């Protein structure tokens, strides 16, 4: 199957990489395992399982390919944008400060999710950011980053 073949290849490479990188630590033996033993053994298991998956995928490939839907059906761009926004906000979370970060995050995520009414969008984003600030910073005294606004 297409998705089993692709994921099988991924796990095969991952297993090989794990075995190589864990062998840089002291591996030991089955009866006397050291730091690198468990990751090495898991790498070997991953190689074995991924080979089983690959063999199954190759055997069923032609027949199953006809039946199977593509992996990325639906609106995958929404997911990609969401992840990008989360990542950027996560990286600059302390620099932006919690108020600005949560305002921007709410605004962007709700827009991506399909809310296009800008007035409503801004109002909800503002309420979300302020609500989190009041609950977590003022009431629960959580040390959230102050960032650009300094509050």
């Amino acid at each position, binding site marked *: 199957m297409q998705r089993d073949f692709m994921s099988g290849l991924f796990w095969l490479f991952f297993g090989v990489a794990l075995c190589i990188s864990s062998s840089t630590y002291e591996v030991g033996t089955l009866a006397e395992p050291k730091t690198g033993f468990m990751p090495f053994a898991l790498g070997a298991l991953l190689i074995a399982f991924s080979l089983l998956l690959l063999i199954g995928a190759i055997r069923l490939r032609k027949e199953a390919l006809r039946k199977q839907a593509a992996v990325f059906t639906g609106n995958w761009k929404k997911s990609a944008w969401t992840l990008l926004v989360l990542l950027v*906000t996560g990286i600059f979370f302390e620099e932006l400060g919690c108020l600005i970060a949560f305002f921007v995050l709410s605004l962007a995520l709700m827009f991506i999710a399909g809310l296009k009414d800008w007035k409503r969008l801004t109002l909800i984003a503002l309420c979300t950011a302020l609500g*989190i600030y009041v609950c977590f910073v003022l009431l629960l005294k959580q040390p959230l980053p102050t960032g650009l606004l300094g509050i």
Partner: protein
Amino acid sequence: MTMSIFDTLILGFSTVLSLHNLLFCFIGVFIGTLIGVLPGIGPVATISLLLPASFSMEPLPSIIMLCGVYYGAMYGGSRTSILLNIPGEAASIVTCLDGYPMARKGRAGPALGMAAFAGFIALTFGIVMLMLLAPVLARGALKFGPPENFALMFFGLTMVTYMAQGSIIKALIMAAAGITAASVGQDPMSGSTRFTMGSMTLMDGLGLVPAAMGMFGIGEVLIDLEADVKQEKFSGKIKGLFPTVQDWTDSKWAIVRGTLIGFFVGVLPGGGTVVPTFMAYATEKRLSKHPEKFGTGIIEGVAAPEAANHAATGGSLVTLLSLGIPANIVMAVLLGGFVIHGIQPGPLLIVREPQLFWGIICSMYIGNIMLVLLNVPLVGVWIKLLNVPFNVLFPLILIFCVLGVYTINNNPYEIVVMIGFGVFGYLARKFDYEGAPFLLGMVLGPMFETAYRQSLGYGGQMSVFFRRPISAILIGASLLLLMTSILPKIRHRRKELVEKLE
């Protein structure tokens, strides 16, 4: 000195019946019902989200609250299954099959009422059994050494992969990947670091909370966002929440069987709350005099799965509290809740922390009553929550994930780690891999490795696992399960069952 059941109940209730503990019990079951009703967020992500907040709390109210979220979610999940054909919780998928047709026939009230009452009866049974069984198991487990602990965890991981709804090979890959993820950070035996790439954040290892929130919070929301889930609204009126005498007559055995199946499957590592609902429904259909009516809106089709998922919550706590082994991913996250307070669930919990142990159990009796009061008369209020547009709800869940994960250590890199797990969880779903074996592998990984290496310290040979009867039985059973799952006949039958369920 051993305590009688009566003494333990007095101890438990005297501990839990303080305003403070009752308040947190209520908060837990309230949040549980809320997230059960709302799609896109389940108990795993919610408990993970609440873990940082519970740092500053005392252990007992914090654990009472987290447990309340778990069993409360089962009550909430059935509301949307019955009224909108949308399971709020994975454990309520089967309830849709007859619950929604009942609502369409104008019998939403009895279906909701039966779901709540069957759940109440089953959870009560689950708690009683937890109370009776956990101390016995814990006493037995006191004799366990590292080889038995290793064998038990091996059995747990095998069961999780065996019970996986998709491919066993994929489940095994996920379990192995989970243990691998747990090996990042310090070696539990020697203290030297592994795979940290010089990062201070990774020195402590990959956190369970970012992993759980990433895979079950972000990953789920991304899938829902992509699917453009259509928001349905329930416009009818809910009348007659109390089932009729005929409804009770039709459902009584379904409740009994669903409860027993739910509890005993819930006890098994990997059993969870989803598998027993399918088993209970299939059992009722097989034993019924009119199997053709299943799926058309009959009350047994609601009572059996609802009894099963509620009883399973009690069952899964048995394994955690008495053996210290999480039976499913919610229990794995709950284990994190114990650990942050310096409490190790397991055979010694009942001896060292009797107030906590019996307090948790007694809080479940109270929480169960609170849930019936919250869910039966206030059903209309919960349904109104579904009017929150999904394009507001889903972003809010993501924002709370960011907030929750940051507050653990006030470290923005934890957010990046969570997003990494979110991408992994999303891709795993896309490629038909289940997240549960991964997360359980991640939780059990360090204990698994430590038990393995300590066991070899006993004799220095692999035969140590087969010389001791309990470990030999558990490892033998695990190997048997793994071998039978690869047999072509069993694989074929399993594939057929999975296709039927889908």
